[in-house]
């Protein structure tokens, strides 16, 4: 590896306050591993989709507290960081069939959203750069669709819930908003319904049973001749 031959410049990174020299250009996650940490908690998909690696850090000579996903952020000289291995946050249990969107189901399940003081801390901390406060406010107003759309790219890392002075668990609220939207607000796909009904007439089953018994050369030929939309 180039770094081990000292061909890549090293930078200092303070992992939970302890200094390590790591090659510049590594992600925070790879820097931790280079330094000798073996992940059990704090690493999942390693590609920015699972939210396991929420990290908070400060840069040299900067008072601002920043946040990131460790797998999607490059180390900076003098950075000091800690990962958050877990977010204690209660998820409500609900039966989707029994929820009533006409009576603001979001407020009913998560009444604490009414405590939002519009400080925007959640939006500022979000590593996906979502408008978290806006979707909490939309939830409060009962605007399910807006809350669902604004929260859609949420990886549920939990950073918003840590920062919130009103102790809201925003990412759980967003989850319920999206499910309500998908189930009750968005228009149904009629063609899917029809395709399911059509399967009951047995035509496809018959067609597939014919395909299943074809000889290799015959099915290859059919495949070659198939017409692409």
């Amino acid at each position, binding site marked *: 590896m*180039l770094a*081990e031959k000292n061909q890549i410049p090293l930078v200092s990174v303070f992992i939970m306050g302890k200094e390590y020299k790591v090659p510049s250009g*590594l992600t925070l996650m*790879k820097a931790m*591993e*280079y*330094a*000798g940490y*073996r*992940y*059990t*908690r704090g690493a*999942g*998909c*390693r*590609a*920015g*989709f*699972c939210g*396991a690696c929420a990290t908070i850090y400060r840069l040299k000579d900067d008072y601002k507290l920043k946040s990131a996903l460790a797998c*999607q*952020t490059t180390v900076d000289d003098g950075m000091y960081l800690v990962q958050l291995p877990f977010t204690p946050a209660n*998820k409500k*249990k609900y039966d*989707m069939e029994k929820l009533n969107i006409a009576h603001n189901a979001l407020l009913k399940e998560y009444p604490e959203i009414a405590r939002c003081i519009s400080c925007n801390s959640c939006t500022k901390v979000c590593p*996906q*750069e979502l408008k978290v406060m806006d979707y909490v406010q939309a939830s409060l107003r009962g605007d399910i669709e807006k809350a*669902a759309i604004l929260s*859609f*790219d949420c990886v549920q890392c939990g950073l918003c819930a840590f920062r919130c002075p009103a102790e809201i668990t925003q990412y759980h609220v967003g*989850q319920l908003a*999206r*499910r309500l*939207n*998908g*189930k009750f607000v*968005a*228009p*149904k*796909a*009629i*063609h*899917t*319904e029809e*395709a*399911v009904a059509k*399967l009951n007439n047995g035509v*496809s*089953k018959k*067609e*597939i049973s014919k*395909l*299943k018994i074809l000889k*290799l050369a015959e*099915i290859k030929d*059919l*495949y070659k001749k*198939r*017409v692409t*939309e």
Partner: protein
Amino acid sequence: MKLIKGYPESMRESIEMVEKTREKRLKEKYQQMSMEERDDVLNKYHPDYKPEVKRTLSVGNSKGEIVPFEVADLIESYSRISEKDIDLSNIDYDVDLLIIGGGGAGTMAGIWATYEGIDPQNILMTTKLRHGDSNSIMAQGGIQAADKSNDAPEIHYLDVIGGGHFANDPELVEALVSDGPAIIKWFEGKGVMFDKEKDGTMITIHGGGTSRKRMHSAKDYTGMELLRVIRDEFINLSIPAVEFSPAIELLMDDKGQVAGAVLFNIETHQYYVVRAKATIMATGGFGRLHIQGFPTTNHYGATADGLAMAYRCGARLRDMDSVQYHPTGAAFPEQIVGLLITEKVRGLGAQPLNREGEMFVHPLEPRDVESAAFIKECYGAGGGVETPTGMQGVWLDSPMINMIKGEGVTERELSAMYRMFKRFDINMVEDPILVFPTLHYQNGGVVIDSNGATELKGLFAGGEVTGGVHGKNRLMGNSLLDYSVFGRRAGISAARYAKKASIGKLTLSHVTKYSKELKKVGVPESRKSPMILPEYRGKNVMSRAIDIF
């Protein structure tokens, strides 16, 4: 190194050539390959077609099967435990159903076993990391299902079989394509936010090797959206899940049934004994074995633990000679090398190009063919683009998407991709992105029937750990469908089995027996599996690490 909007000068020169040919290419279509041309490029350039990277299994029920070295080493390994280490008389969890793995297949299995009448409190899900940490959550592009009026399951069937080189198990393909429409309807009813037109029509596009536009999506977060919803449902049903506690060995009973597992708490290092009337293997695939040294799109825990454990009990494997390399892994910048660039980028119109900005392959050949063509362009035709770390790649002309589909489409429908590149100062709306094939999917696996039952009594399986559904090559959008269909079927079948099953005396004697076989063929005793997690610690640190604490 000086970067101009994310790229070094050397790569910028090639980008200029890409820009010059763009106008002309927007009007052009590249011809698809004939079957003969496909075979030729696969034979010459696909990493899987090199015989020197594989060997024959010398023990167990698939003795004689040819598999990659990395898989052979994992399978032909000693257990991490022996009979004398584990007290099987002290049972920590006594359940009807044990689900091993917390990805899509395991989650579906739990939900459907509950619907089938198993009390949630008699189910246990165990997972190595967190519930949901899986390849399922990382799938981006979409899920296939034949639910449009110009489509039908039999058309989908032909695409799957042809894409899989006619090596698939027809019964499994039938189950896959026939359940498709009902699975989409079920997801919709659970509240999945599919991409739709204003009237509710699903927005569907092509994937590599599809003859109909049947790729349903939720932006480029399709896997995440599906998994978020089913995990939420799973939790609502109050099914217990134990995280950070991977299974390290299956248990059997004196009647030869699979009867639970030994779990290992990776934080406290304590073991737990689970007795179960039925067990579902849903441990996913093998990307983190880094076959032939390839980087991978897979999640941290994708180490094929389930293959090793099931094989020791006598399960048979199939199609393990075949590995899926996704054509478009990121090749630049270095921080994201190997990560997935969804096929949807090509589905929406981006063309793959060489250094000169020329097309050399149709954008949507089946994945293995597309990958082989990229490798040929870089290492056979000399048309690759070199990165500052010496890696080769080809361009994916992403700016074409907004030109064809309209402004804002990339930012909206590919928000995960757009965000990932933006984090490294690359704007994929203005500049192309560099890609190279990356290790993506385990095409083969444990043999199952269309009910998700393995050949072993008491053991069921679904998802990437299984083989036969995709033959020798999976098409895009069929893995999300696979885990949905076979996770569900395995959950239902296991529930029915558990209602009638009775478990005898627990044993690990199959492990002892397997060790003896390994010894006979001279496998070194240092080789152990399952792997549990890959080792990525720095070499400098590891060379000076001492084990005293």
